[in-house]
């Protein structure tokens, strides 16, 4: 590569060839598996013998499967709750962190830390905390004289635990996006507003929020698609339980694939998930006018 490019008169200028490593990576690690999974979704495969073709059987089963419907409902619920919890928090924290004050910079750095830990480590940590027998939860229920603080023992409690842990993990990331977005807003807007006598709250709603419109879309798309494909925390903290109260679509896929070894059916679930997640993100981009953006800086 080096010899070829230095011999070329256009030394150092980006060309199509520069994209090859990225394209290859995407083809091998995303494209090929996707096509294979699509093929597998039309087969019956137990992971041992060769897959054999069953046509649309997995797909008609998927359509009628009550467990799939429950899982879809839970995934939608988790997505909506995650968005509703994370967006206001990240937006406020991000705008606050955009200020130049030194204490804000220090605190922002601390807020950012959860993002650096792996999901698995975070899952184990929170599992220990929420354990009402041996964990911190047992202690807390003693302090407040609660008879039975057992969030993981009830269906809604377990779902809220997942919402909470995912918020704890991802709010810092979205805060970072909003911080960047808020710093792009020209100072002069605020100066003009101050002269006209607008207070902080008024400035937030009439300047900051409208200016962050595209940032909200960016963050929301990432959040929604992230929540639709959420998996690690569920596996570690609740294993889809109690019963199937937190068996969201990606977890159902895992269970079908690697507990029951219905890899054909699990592939159908996977393909459905890819299609839905892609469709939702495209739809959001369309409906919000994000695609008509004139400058890349608007979406920051």
């Amino acid at each position: 590569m080096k010899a070829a490019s230095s011999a070329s008169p256009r030394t150092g200028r980006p060309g199509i060839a520069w994209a090859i490593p990225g394209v290859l990576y995407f083809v091998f690690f995303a494209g090929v598996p996707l096509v294979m999974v699509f093929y597998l979704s039309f087969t019956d495969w137990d992971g041992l013998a060769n897959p054999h073709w069953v046509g649309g059987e997995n797909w008609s089963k998927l359509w009628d499967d009550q467990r799939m419907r429950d899982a879809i409902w839970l995934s939608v619920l988790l997505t909506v709750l995650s968005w509703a919890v994370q967006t206001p928090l990240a937006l406020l924290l991000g705008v606050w962190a955009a200020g130049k004050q030194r204490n804000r910079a220090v605190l922002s750095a601390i807020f950012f830390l959860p993002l650096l830990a792996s999901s698995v480590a975070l899952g184990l940590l929170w599992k220990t905390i929420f354990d009402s027998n041996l964990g911190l939860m047992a202690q807390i229920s003693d302090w407040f004289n609660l008879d039975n603080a057992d969030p993981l023992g009830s269906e809604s409690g377990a779902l809220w635990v997942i919402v909470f842990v995912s918020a704890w993990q991802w709010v810092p990331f979205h805060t970072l996006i909003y911080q960047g977005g808020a710093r792009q807003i020209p100072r002069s807007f605020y100066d003009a507003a101050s002269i006209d006598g607008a207070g902080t709250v008024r400035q937030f709603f009439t300047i900051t929020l409208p200016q962050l419109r595209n940032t909200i879309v960016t963050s929301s798309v990432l959040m929604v698609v992230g929540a639709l494909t959420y998996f690690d925390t569920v596996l570690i903290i609740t294993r889809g339980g109690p019963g199937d109260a937190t068996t969201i679509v990606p977890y159902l896929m895992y269970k079908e694939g690697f507990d029951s070894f219905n890899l054909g059916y699990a592939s159908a679930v996977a393909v459905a998930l890819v299609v839905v997640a892609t469709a939702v993100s495209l739809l959001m981009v369309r409906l919000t006018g994000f695609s008509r953006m004139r400058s890349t800086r608007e979406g920051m």
Partner: protein
Amino acid sequence: MRSLIPLGRRRRIRTPLVAVAASLLAASTLAGCGSSGPGGGKDTLEVWVYQDGSTTIQEDFVEQFNESSDIDVDLVQIPGANYQDRMRTAMGSSNAPDIFFNWGGGSISDFVDDDLLVDLTDTVQSDPELKDAFIPSILDAGAVDGHYYGIPMRGVQPVILFYNKTIFEEAGLSAPETWDDFENAVDTLLAEDITPIALGGLDSWTEQMWLEYLLDRIGGPEVFDRIRNGDSSAWGDPAVLRAAQEIKDLVDKDAFGNFQSLSQTDDGVSTFFAQGNAAMHLMGSWEFANQNTNQPDFAQNDLAWTTFPAFPDGAGDPTDVVGNPTNYWSINSQVTGDKLDAAIEFLKVSASQEYAEALAANGDVPVTSNATDLLDQSPAPEFAHFAYDLADQAPSFTLSWDQALVTARATPTLDAISKLFAGQLSPEEFVDTLQNEG
């Protein structure tokens, strides 16, 4: 593994997809080069074992074996919680182990169907020393359709009702002999604000143990025998409904405490039990070795054990046992020639007197025919004799449901059990679900 910045959709969906596709790739590679041996180099045998308190024995004997054998054994220890998934996924790929730990029966029947295992029937039949070394029923329990695919390599593992005798004494209770005694104990303990039963709700196979025993005591071992032999309508037996109702009553009473956040595989339940927070714990006999290693004070001063309570009006014999007869070594059918000879030699190690002695010294109960003589060498002879007699004298030894049933039936069964305990299925719905899916 995970990059710092989550790229949302593309990156996060891909992970499971890659896993699925990688298995496919691996499977097609295996199909393409059937003659090359799986895993490891030419002169080593890769052996997979479930990692727990007994693994040190396998380590020692592998070392001894390697000193005298031309072909070395490479022991790979797989952490417990994921052992079955790992084994199953690997067996469909070119990275399969040469020899591996399993539970016999349903846990290997899919492999047998696909000819992935070496049939050891002739080896066993032609070698009286090997055949007679083991208790016949234990050797047979690992067989599939009358053929031997596994050689016993661990102790016998009946499920036992452990209890904390100090708590029982303080509450004025004695070991429950009948279900009435048991319910009385539960009520007394609840009144004293002690969790009556420790249970790892995150592992549905531990919830399953309660139903296994209840069904046996109420309906006798024949009900599950019918289910095991493919008759799903046997889930409709009134004994199944009655057993499920007993579970619902216990759950409604809070007899299991906050069981949904406890797990057996990470030792959470055992710790909770050993700390004196719960009075009873229904678990495989390995729990004794666990407690003896991790909480020796508790094991010596408080830990006691008894058989599962009897149902006076039930059809089951109160001395029936459920659990796992033992664990087995099986050989991958890709292993051939000299390697196969070495692999069989390695399996024979488990039949030796020294191996049985090592198991006994570790607190396990060996399944060799002469085990009774060894039980006094156990660190807890009293427990060893109890567990041995329990298994030896049981009129019926029901294999754990999830091991007895093929995967396609075991998973829906465990799911239904987990929903019954979570209150998502009523006992009636539980029966319906199992008749359709289990």
